[in-house]
């Protein structure tokens, strides 16, 4: 049935799945970059013992963690443009897919950044206090202590939770279907509605999600092996 022609667009059903997969990967990848950069920055800042920075970081994490993801998606897509006139006129003029994509990337990126920030903070705080002192005692400045001493170990320690965060992000990207982004789940449902073969359509989507998750898992496992520290026993069980 995936080789049949879809009613619109002159494409076959399997091509719809592939294009859905493309959006899923694009949204996930862009959101992941944002999440990792922002999450690392905020997680790091929360460990610097500056009262106001810590408060901003805490507020960030609480805000994005405590609002349901679906609500955040609607807020970004339907509500945010109302507050920014320039954005609103762009949304009206632009291809709806672009606005949907942007909203989904921001929503998933910021949501995941809050969770990664927590992990980065926990990773840094799991290091012995003496590591920071030893870096400072050598004359390294605070950013250098983070860059060369604390973060390299913190990131190694949090690779396992980062892996599950990456998988969550990929799975969460299916929520973008609620704002109309034609990603994988959206396409599976569409095919189901056209053909009434819901079982086959969603089975195909499921397999694809599993394959992406497994690939992401493998990549992270490779990173973990490549960065393993000789002679170092990680604190937690692996």
């Amino acid at each position, binding site marked *: 049935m995936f080789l049949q022609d879809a009613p619109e667009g002159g494409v076959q059903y399997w091509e719809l799945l592939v294009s859905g997969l493309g959006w899923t990967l694009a949204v996930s990848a862009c959101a992941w970059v944002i999440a990792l950069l922002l999450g690392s920055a905020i997680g790091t800042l929360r460990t610097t013992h500056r009262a106001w920075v810590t408060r901003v970081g805490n507020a960030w994490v609480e805000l994005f963690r405590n609002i349901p993801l679906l609500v955040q998606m609607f807020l970004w897509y339907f509500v945010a443009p109302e507050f920014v006139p320039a954005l609103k006129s762009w949304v009206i003029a632009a291809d709806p897919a672009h606005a949907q994509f942007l909203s989904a990337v921001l929503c998933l990126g910021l949501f995941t950044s809050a969770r990664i920030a927590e992990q980065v903070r926990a990773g840094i705080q799991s290091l*012995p206090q*003496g*590591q920071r*002192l*030893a*870096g*400072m*005692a*050598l*004359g*390294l*400045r605070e950013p*250098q202590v983070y860059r*060369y*001493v604390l973060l*390299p*170990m913190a990131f*190694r320690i949090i690779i396992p939770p980062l892996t599950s965060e990456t998988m969550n992000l990929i799975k969460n990207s299916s929520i973008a279907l609620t704002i109309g982004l034609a990603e994988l789940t959206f396409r599976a449902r569409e095919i189901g509605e056209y053909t009434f073969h819901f079982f086959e359509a969603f089975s195909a989507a499921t397999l694809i999600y599993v394959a992406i998750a497994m690939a992401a898992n493998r990549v992270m496992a490779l990173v973990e092996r490549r*960065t393993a*520290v*000789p*002679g*170092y*026993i990680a604190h937690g069980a692996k």
Partner: protein
Amino acid sequence: MITIDNVSKWYGAFQVLDGCTTGVQKGDVVVVCGPSGSGKSTLIKCVNGLEPFQQGDITVDGIPVGSPGTDLPKLRSRVGMVFQHFELFPHLSITQNLALAQVKVLKRTRDEAVERGLKLLDRVGLAAQREKFPGQLSGGQQQRVAIARALSMDPICMLFDEPTSALDPEMINEVLDVMVQLASDGMTMMVVTHEMGFARKVAHRVIFMDHGRIVEDATKDDFFGKPHSERAQQFLAKILQH
């Protein structure tokens, strides 16, 4: 070299240091001892500004540690420090551990830094371990690398905070030997330790602390010989039993 003048420090309402006054002359080895919680680590961390203090003055080589205008990282780069738990950087090889701050702080080239590091590694008898990682060395070896790392910055003085108290007994001497060697080379040293054998051998002065106060600040011979405060006597009697 180091002057400590009437320094007091509080953690909230709890006073950790109470009017500490002492100093370390160039080329002197000063041993600091005292019961657990008496403020030894806190005092030594105040010397290179790792801990702030609320009252009094500390200067190192004439530079006021507590003054807001002081470039603390720069000052710290000239003061070596060795910690109880070694604190080598586990993700860096021994060579990289030795080179990191030389390159990033002193702006030496990588080659210069590695060369200087290897020279010091040789001095502590570990040249063969240069490619290993800290987790692959014994505690005593790690501590010797940590000493070499501090020396690689060409410090004007060295601070030690219980450098042997996390070590198995059979490794204590290999570290003490390095420190004795360093002392006889004329390095200015402030050493928190309960190794009275080390103090007897190389210390010029011994400081005894209790409850945040410097109770006794005497030459080595006075400290071990003539009568002194009752608190220090009890303490000495206790640790010399071992």
